[in-house]
């Protein structure tokens, strides 16, 4: 293919026509499917056929409102399209009849409406003004939930590959300069300036260079890379191609975790169609730039998110980190200079090339530019994906976008940065989100997972949970991480089991310090962070577990006791039957008692009591 320009206008025209047709679009990202989106799609097909409607059916990826899945969008020519949330097969008939046939939106199921020039409806918030999106910016996520990720036409019609087209007319160094001006920092967690990294690889001497995309998103509580991979695969490819042109590489590898089958499927489709169209392969868009791209599926090891471990894994070895230096920019894949960035970083590149580095740098804070995609999870009302400008405060994210704490409970902590990050308490809620202030608070940006915890969360239990994860995922190469995380975990388990001793806190701190300062790779060095931050902000909880054998949040089973309130117990005997270990005794119609020495704290008796006579303390 010569140039995209020739086909772009016809593609754009066809795309516009599509928007002038009656249409129903179902969100079919992994979360949409998990919530039952596929069944909803089937129900819609049946209904549309039954009524003989002239309606286009399509699907898209995750728009970000995970809390509202399954999500269905309905649009009529000349009118705003309405995004409905919580749509189940049984709702389909009524929705179609009302919206598509009678042209009356069902306001109580509508989440937002997207105007795109069309007339808006009363009583439904417009996307940009809706509580969930008002404080967001949509750049990297702009196509998510808006285009069909399996059609390259949708990508091109929305500005796709225009960045590559422009890049191919630029000097490679000028592209690197624009990335430097943009101030973009690595979105995988490290926060290393992307332009500087590209410069290193461009300057490195080597007959062959590689572009590697780290799509091994493994942090529990993080799924922004998955959402972009599934929702906008071409953007990542375009970013990698631009990087390849800029630094002089003609081969790229996407290392994607195997737990993301849909992402791998869509990437494969995207690569095949791009090759077919001459956007990928030899003589791209009629220039002499060649670029080859392949996918390498991970095999289940969190540590492969560490860049040198990832390179070993691509080479077919055990994913154990390498000693640095040499850095991958000098000796990376097959010992060749390698530019390694994560999904979100690459996905930002086409926008930066198209709009210029200055445009990107106008968003964000002094040292953290642009926008960042976060995953909001935990005990909040609106779980989902949110792209926000750097510098927004944690409070705005938790209370405005995420809609505050679920079930009217009190906020306790927010965990930022995955297992390597830290738990920040309410006092830190006004911290602006950027690389440096999160680190000063003891947490880190990480890849962008924000797990919100309420008052019912035990912070020692949380630390134990993260250490269990890092301990299981330690590669085993270096002593501090392999042996140290195991001992940290064992001590935390002991404390939660009520067997902690006062010296344990010192031992935890001593071990954590050695692991932090001496472990081989960043994963080991950051593994103690959950322990260190919970000790810093919630030390009293550790002390309560150790000294008073009490779990203030009422989470650690070994520290709970169950008792029967005499006044409330009518002696019905239901709890006696419910108890699997015979710990409850009592005469009929007289107050029962629980033998604490027999009780296994399973809690089975509590929901059985109709009189709320059994209490947990």
């Amino acid at each position, binding site marked *: 293919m010569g140039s995209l320009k020739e086909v772009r206008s016809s593609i754009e025209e066809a795309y516009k026509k599509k928007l002038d047709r009656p249409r129903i679009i179902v969100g079919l990202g*992994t*979360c949409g*499917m*998990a*919530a039952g989106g596929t069944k909803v799609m089937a129900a819609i097909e049946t209904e549309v056929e039954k009524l003989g409607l002239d309606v286009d059916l399509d699907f898209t990826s995750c728009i970000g409102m*995970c*809390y509202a*899945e399954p999500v269905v969008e309905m649009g009529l020519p000349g009118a705003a399209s309405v995004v409905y949330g919580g749509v189940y097969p049984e709702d389909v008939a009524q929705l179609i009849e009302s919206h598509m046939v009678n042209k009356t939106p069902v306001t109580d199921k509508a989440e937002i409406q997207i105007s795109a020039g069309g007339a808006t409806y009363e009583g439904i918030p417009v996307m940009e003004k809706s509580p969930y999106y008002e404080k967001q910016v949509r750049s990297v996520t702009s196509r998510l939930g808006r285009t069909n990720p399996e059609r390259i036409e949708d990508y091109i019609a929305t500005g796709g590959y225009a960045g590559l087209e422009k890049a191919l007319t630029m000097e490679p160094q000028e592209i690197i300069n624009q990335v430097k001006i943009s101030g973009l920092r690595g979105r995988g967690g490290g926060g290393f300036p992307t332009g500087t990294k590209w410069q290193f690889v461009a300057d490195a001497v080597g007959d062959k260079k590689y572009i590697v995309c780290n799509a091994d*998103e*493994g*942090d*529990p*509580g*993080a*799924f922004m890379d*998955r959402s972009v991979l599934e929702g906008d695969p071409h953007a990542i490819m375009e970013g990698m191609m631009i990087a390849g042109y800029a630094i002089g590489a003609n081969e790229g590898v996407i290392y994607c975790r*195997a*737990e*993301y*089958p849909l992402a791998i499927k869509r990437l494969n489709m995207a690569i095949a169609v791009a090759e077919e169209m001459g956007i990928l392969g030899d003589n791209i868009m009629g220039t002499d730039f060649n670029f080859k791209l392949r996918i*390498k*599926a*991970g*095999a*289940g*090891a*969190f540590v492969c998110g560490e860049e040198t471990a990832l390179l070993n*894994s*691509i*080479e*077919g*070895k*055990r*994913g*154990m980190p390498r000693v640095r230096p040499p850095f991958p920019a000098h000796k990376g894949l*097959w010992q060749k200079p390698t530019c390694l960035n994560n999904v979100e970083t690459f996905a930002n590149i086409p926008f930066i090339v198209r709009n210029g580095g200055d445009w990107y740098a106008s968003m964000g804070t002094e040292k953290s530019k642009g926008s960042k995609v976060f*995953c909001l*999870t*935990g*005990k909040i009302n609106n*779980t*989902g994906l949110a792209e926000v400008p750097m510098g927004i405060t944690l409070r705005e994210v938790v209370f405005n976008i995420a809609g505050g704490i679920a079930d009217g409970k009190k906020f306790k902590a927010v*965990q930022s940065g995955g297992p390597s990050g830290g738990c920040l308490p309410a006092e830190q809620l006004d911290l602006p989100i950027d690389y440096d202030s999160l680190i000063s608070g003891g947490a880190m940006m990480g890849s962008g*997972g924000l*797990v919100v*915890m309420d008052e019912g*969360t035990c912070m020692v239990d949380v630390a134990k*949970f*993260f250490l269990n*994860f890092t301990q*299981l*995922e330690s*590669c085993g190469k270096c002593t501090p991480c392999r042996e140290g995380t195991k001992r940290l975990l064992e001590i935390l388990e002991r404390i939660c089991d009520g067997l902690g001793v006062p010296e344990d806190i010192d031992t935890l701190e001593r071990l954590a310090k050695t692991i932090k300062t001496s472990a081989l790779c960043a994963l080991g060095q950051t593994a103690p962070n959950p322990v260190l931050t919970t000790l810093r902000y919630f030390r009293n909880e550790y002390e309560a577990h150790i000294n008073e054998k009490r779990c203030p949040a009422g989470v650690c089973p070994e520290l709970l006791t169950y008792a029967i309130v005499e006044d409330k117990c009518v002696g019905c005997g239901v709890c006696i039957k419910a108890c699997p270990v015979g710990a409850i005794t009592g005469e009929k119609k007289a107050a029962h008692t629980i033998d604490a020495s027999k009780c296994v704290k399973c809690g089975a008796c509590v929901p059985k009591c109709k009189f709320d006579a059994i209490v947990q303390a």
Partner: protein
Amino acid sequence: MAICKCTGEQVESPQDVQLMELLEHYREYDGALIPVLQGAQDIYGYLPGEVLETISKELKIPFSEVFGVVTFYSQFHLKPRGRNIIRVCLGTACHVRGGSKIFEGLKEILGVDNGGTTEDLRFTLESVACIGACGLAPVIMINDDTHGRLTNDGLDKILEQYE
């Protein structure tokens, strides 16, 4: 029918033929070991010792190293597995929303422990750190299907869908 490159013997089982084709496909590929192991596990359902030995010989990678790689990655299995793989997410979000109760419930229904396979080879039960569907916690994945917002009461019904 295919010929094994190293022994010159004819291999006859359809799985062995597939393995030979797989090895042929990856012969000139840099870093072939992991994709070959993934392919072999798709063919056999797990990675029997003899298959690892064949892979070692064909790719000219020491047998001990092949074993080292297999045991490093949690995706690879040295023992037969169930027809349906249940992965219970115990990630952060699922953890705070009761994922471990779901896990306990499944253990009880299936009568197996973490990593265990039911006698009829119908199910293998595993825990997984995070499958990235945190907004729907607690979540499990059966084969490639994700089931979210679970309660213990609904588990039987979900399992019924898998033969």
